[in-house]
């Protein structure tokens, strides 16, 4: 086993991880940083984010507006103190990215342009065409090259944390090219490993979004919070689940069913003005739009295609000039993967799993309950998204809290002594033995078998709409799958060098545990709120009994132990969550 000493480890090289690493480097260039990522950073899933990133800049907008939109968007499950902090930092972070070269789309006078996004009262979504995540990620990655104190470990698979004396002292990582194990010792670790969308089969996520960091933290006693809240993005391509950005609707696109009818007006999102109106119709929040699709499907008003039921996302009225200038990526994606040119035909879309609102419990300073462990980005539950995330709040989240995590970790490491190498080494050896042991088996089930059954269980039992018996069946099935996984999988690939079958088996272990946490958390939330909506006796929001966060703790081989924690309400007491209604016409920018 190779041994490396460093001060701060950042696990994950996406937007949050890179921002955190840069923050550590800027706060003290003498601190050693190890950026450990299972892919080369520009492949991280931040790259696929399309629509934009929120930050108040218009004079007719305010931090209070952004705060209100976010809290109501989250169906009042947000920790409002953290949201207040968040909205106040967004614009500065977007400006910082601009200084670092991010090619934000501009107005004619050279100022940054902002567009409407779902659930937002005023335009505040900064965008770089419809490839905002791509541009942000490349800007952050290329800027990170300016800092020699960031030592990168590209294509190193982080397999476990080393926790000794109640604090994080390192990670065990596999150098993918060789299969060699590395013990990287540290004083602090920042987890930025992204979401867990691959728990489901139909999703917009990359293959790497398997919840590794959530799984690692979970296994070391850190609770996962609010895992039952998974976001279905309303407009993804059927079959592949490839994302068609909300930015289309921000530019004025409409959703129609098989009769050409703008069906969202039937779901308290209307009236259907012939022009876009903020927080109404197609600019409503994602959970409501995805739920509307499900209802339309039940009523038989969706369109049947070989790849499943769809509705139409119609951009034709926007005109070729706007489509090509503002939405070039989805134009290319629609043509390549759906055979449709959005200038002349509507795009077939359906909901697909997109974002994990829940995650590793941390406070507003990204500190988890485990000393020395921080979490930022989609893998964390810092408290800003609540029960449903607004579009363009996630790209903002990764840089706002990536920076916080970096600065906090930098401060922390100066105050703590180095850890005990021999104890860390013994733990690391045990991890290596366990994982290398997976390679020897020539009997057992294939990775794909367990994975596909997990997907079926989740899609069937813990989908957009949930019922007690469906969730119970999913929980039982997942417990069984964990058991079957625990007996050992058969791997065709016995190599140490570049063994991606082995790595996907390790990932599956994390994903299965997270799936069970998700299903159990959902079963036990006996209300409907945001993205967790039930069709059984718990159809309504219940602020008396369930205005609280779900915390899931690992118990070993069994299902998680659930606990609850209060939600912090400051300025916005829970109200009825209302969209649509009468209002002014949106001035599109």
């Amino acid at each position, binding site marked *: 086993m190779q041994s490396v000493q460093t001060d701060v480890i950042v696990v994950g090289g996406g937007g949050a991880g890179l921002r955190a690493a840069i923050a550590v480097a800027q706060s003290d260039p003498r601190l050693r940083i190890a950026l450990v990522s299972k892919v080369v950073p520009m492949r991280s899933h931040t790259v696929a984010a399309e629509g934009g990133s929120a930050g108040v800049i218009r004079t007719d907008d305010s931090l209070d507006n952004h705060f209100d939109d976010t809290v109501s968007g989250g169906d009042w499950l947000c920790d409002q103190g953290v949201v207040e902090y968040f909205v106040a930092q967004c614009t500065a972070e977007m400006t910082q990215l601009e200084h670092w070269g991010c090619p934000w789309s501009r107005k004619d006078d050279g100022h940054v342009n902002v567009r409407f996004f779902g659930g937002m009262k005023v335009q505040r979504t900064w965008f770089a065409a419809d490839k905002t995540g791509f541009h942000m990620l490349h800007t952050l990655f290329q800027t990170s090259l300016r800092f020699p104190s960031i030592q990168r470990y590209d294509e190193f698979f982080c397999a476990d944390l080393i926790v000794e004396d109640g604090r994080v002292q390192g990670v065990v990582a596999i150098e993918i*090219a*060789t299969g*060699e194990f590395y013990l990287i010792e540290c004083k602090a670790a920042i987890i930025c490993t992204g979401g867990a969308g691959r728990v489901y089969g139909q999703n917009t996520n990359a293959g790497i979004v398997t919840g590794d960091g959530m799984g690692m933290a979970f296994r070391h006693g850190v609770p996962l919070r609010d895992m039952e809240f998974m976001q279905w993005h309303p407009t993804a391509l059927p079959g592949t689940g490839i994302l068609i950005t909300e930015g289309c609707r921000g530019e004025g696109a409409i959703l129609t069913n098989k009769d050409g009818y703008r069906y969202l007006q039937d779901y308290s999102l209307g009236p259907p003005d012939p022009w876009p109106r903020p927080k109404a119709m197609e600019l409503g929040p994602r959970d409501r739009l995805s739920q509307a699709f499900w209802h339309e499907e039940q009523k038989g008003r969706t369109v049947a295609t070989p790849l499943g039921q769809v509705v139409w996302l119609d951009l034709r009225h926007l005109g070729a000039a706007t489509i090509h200038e503002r939405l070039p990526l989805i134009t290319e994606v629609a043509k390549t993967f759906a055979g449709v040119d959005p200038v002349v035909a509507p795009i077939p879309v359906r909901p697909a799993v997109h974002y994990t609102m829940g995650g590793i419990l941390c406070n507003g300073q990204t500190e988890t309950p485990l000393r020395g462990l921080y979490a930022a980005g989609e893998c964390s539950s810092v408290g800003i998204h609540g029960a449903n995330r607004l579009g363009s709040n996630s790209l903002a989240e990764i840089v706002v809290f990536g920076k916080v995590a970096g600065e906090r970790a930098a401060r922390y490491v100066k105050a703590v002594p180095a850890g005990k190498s021999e104890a860390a080494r013994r733990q690391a050896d045990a991890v290596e033995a366990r994982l290398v042991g997976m390679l020897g088996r020539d009997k057992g089930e294939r990775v794909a078998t367990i994975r596909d059954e997990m997907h079926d269980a989740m899609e069937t039992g813990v989908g957009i709409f949930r019922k007690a018996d469906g969730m119970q069946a999913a929980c039982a099935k997942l417990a069984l799958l964990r058991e079957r996984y625990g007996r050992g999988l058969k791997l065709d690939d016995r190599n140490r*060098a570049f063994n991606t079958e082995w790595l996907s088996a390790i990932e599956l272990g994390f994903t299965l545990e997270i799936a069970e946490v998700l299903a159990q958390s959902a079963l036990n939330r006996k209300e409907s709120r945001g993205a967790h909506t039930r069709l059984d006796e718990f159809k309504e929001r219940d602020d008396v009994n369930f205005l609280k966060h779900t915390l899931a703790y690992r118990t070993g081989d069994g299902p998680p132990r659930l606990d609850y924690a209060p939600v912090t309400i400051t300025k916005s007491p829970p109200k009825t969550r209302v969209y649509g209604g009468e209002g002014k016409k949106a001035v599109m920018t």
Partner: protein
Amino acid sequence: MARVKTYVRPMQGWWRKNPYYVRYMIREASSVFLAIYTVILLVGLYRLTQGEAAWDAWRAALTSPGSLLFHWLALLTVGYHAYTWWKVAPKTAPDLRIAGRPLPELVVTAGGCLATLGTSVLVYVIVRWM
């Protein structure tokens, strides 16, 4: 990476494996004909300085069957060379825009080819008429 036994594939015969590369090599080879033709012209220029007899001898040599064959081949390949020259010319220019829209590469290529053809015809007419 030193610990992993990577495999480096040889480059031998690289240009024969893809029609794009074959066309590229023909393009590059056409400059050989252009170079030889240039040398012939330079020799002719030199013969001109040596007096009328040398000049007439040079001109007579040009009418040999071998020379005619070379010149016909050279006309074809240098013509192809000119076409490929104009095809890549837009890549050497900065981003050209006309009235706010990007100038299509086809315009530069077509314009250049026409200009080359036109100039060649003009030179031919002048020389013949003289």
